Every structure is written in C-alpha cells, then in structure tokens.
C-alpha cells in the first residue's frame, strides 16, 4: 500500500552511509558530531520501518531510546569540544596531543 519494505531500508542505508562519510572526512569536531547525528537518524528510520513491517511497537520504542541517547551524546560531545577548544584553540583533531587532564 505504501512502498516495498526494501526501499525504506535503502533510504536508511543511504542516510547512514552519508553520515559515515561526514564522520570520516571532516576535520572539524563539530562536523564529526553532526555525522554521528546523521547516522543515528538513518538507524531510527530503519527501526520505524521495521516497526511498521511487523506491526509491532517495539521498533518505535527503540526509536525513542535512540533519541534520548542522541541527545545525551551530542550534549556531552559538545561540552568536550568546548573544553578542548579552550585548551588548544583549535577544532582540528590533529592538534590534540596533550593527553592529560
């Protein structure tokens, strides 16, 4: 009635792989966090599509937990980025060579 199940999964895989490229390619920590967000978005689409495929609400429940984990992850990650920018004055991961608190 809507679309074949595989098409939704291909969409999820496309978004996930774009997040992967963003995570690997950029040399800016904020863009790295953005890439992780995009990857979680793709995983969430796959969960919701599977929830509709089997008519079970577990997939949607997992999507809710993905949402909470994404919120916690990005807030802690941004706090770390701000902290490390204070110390080094750079957002390039290559310039972080001080391994001490």
């Amino acid at each position: 009635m809507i679309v074949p199940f595989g098409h939704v999964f291909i969409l999820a895989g496309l978004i996930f792989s774009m997040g992967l490229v963003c995570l690997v390619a950029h040399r800016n920590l904020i863009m790295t966090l953005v890439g992780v967000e995009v990857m979680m978005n793709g995983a969430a689409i796959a969960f919701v599509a599977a929830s509709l495929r089997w008519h079970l609400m577990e997939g949607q429940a997992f999507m809710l937990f993905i949402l909470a984990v994404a919120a916690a992850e990005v807030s802690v990650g941004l706090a770390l980025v701000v902290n490390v920018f204070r110390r080094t004055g750079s957002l390039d991961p290559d310039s972080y060579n001080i391994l001490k608190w």
Partner: protein
Amino acid sequence: MTLYAAIFYLLSAVTVLATAIAITRRQPVHAVLYLIVAFLGTAALFFLLGAPLLAAFVVIVYAGAIMVLILFVIMLFRRSPRELRLLSEWGPATLLGVVFLAVAIAMVFKDPNSRIVLKGAVAQPGDFGRFLFERYWLAVEIVSILLLVALVTIIQVGKGRGTGGEEQEEGL
C-alpha cells in the same frame, strides 16, 4: 504508484538531498541549517510510516533542541575555525561509504522479504505511551539516569581547566 508512495519518494528525495548538502559544507552553521531541513523531512517520513508521536518528538528534540544546541556552541567560538586540509580525506571516505552502501543494497535486494509492500497502520500516541510504560518502564528509567549522568558530566567538563573550578570564569 499510490499517493502515499509518491509522498514517500518525495520526502526521501528531500531528506537525502538536504543531508548530502549538509555533509559537504565547510561552515558548520550552514551544515546545521541544512540538517534541520533533513530532520523535518525525517519527521514527515515517520508520520507517513505510522508514528505520529515520534514525528512530534523528532521535530521537538532533533530539529529543535539538538540543532539549536549545536548552533549555540558554534556561536561560542570566537571565529569560525577553518578546516585546513579539505580534500585529502574525501576520496577514501567516499569510497568507504559507497562500498558500504553497495553491500547494504545487495543484502536488502537478496532478501525476498524486502519486496513485501508495507501496509499502512498508525500507532496512536495514547496506545504507544501506554505500551511504553507497561512493557519498557525499566528502560525509560534507565534513560532518565543516562540523561542525569550526561548532565553531571557536562557540569564537570564545562567547568573550566582547573579541577577545583576556581578559574572557571576565564572565558573562551
């Protein structure tokens, strides 16, 4: 092709295009703004796939809270940090993504279950909330503990470079 299928492919195109523009921007502000469009497309997609409560949550939490948080953090930096070596990593990264995507598509098309056409169904928000708190109440509590731990971590990490926090007002 039904109307629902047309809406699905249109929303998919918008989401994929906005994400593709977002991940290739050099300025993080532009990337975040394009990503808001992508998340709104995802929310509409969730509504189409029968999850109206999750669509509302995506608009509120993803497109609202998280993206605004990233925007504020970008504004904290004095000057927008420029990426020095731009093109050196894009080739291997794109190759990696394309290989991953090709394997994923091959696996999806090999499975005969992937040709099953989805039937429309809607999880009403009240039913979904009751299901969540009857079957997964422990996981909801664990998520609340996770958010509390994240809050404590942010307070400790964002305090500044001193361990005692006496020089926290040093500024960025």
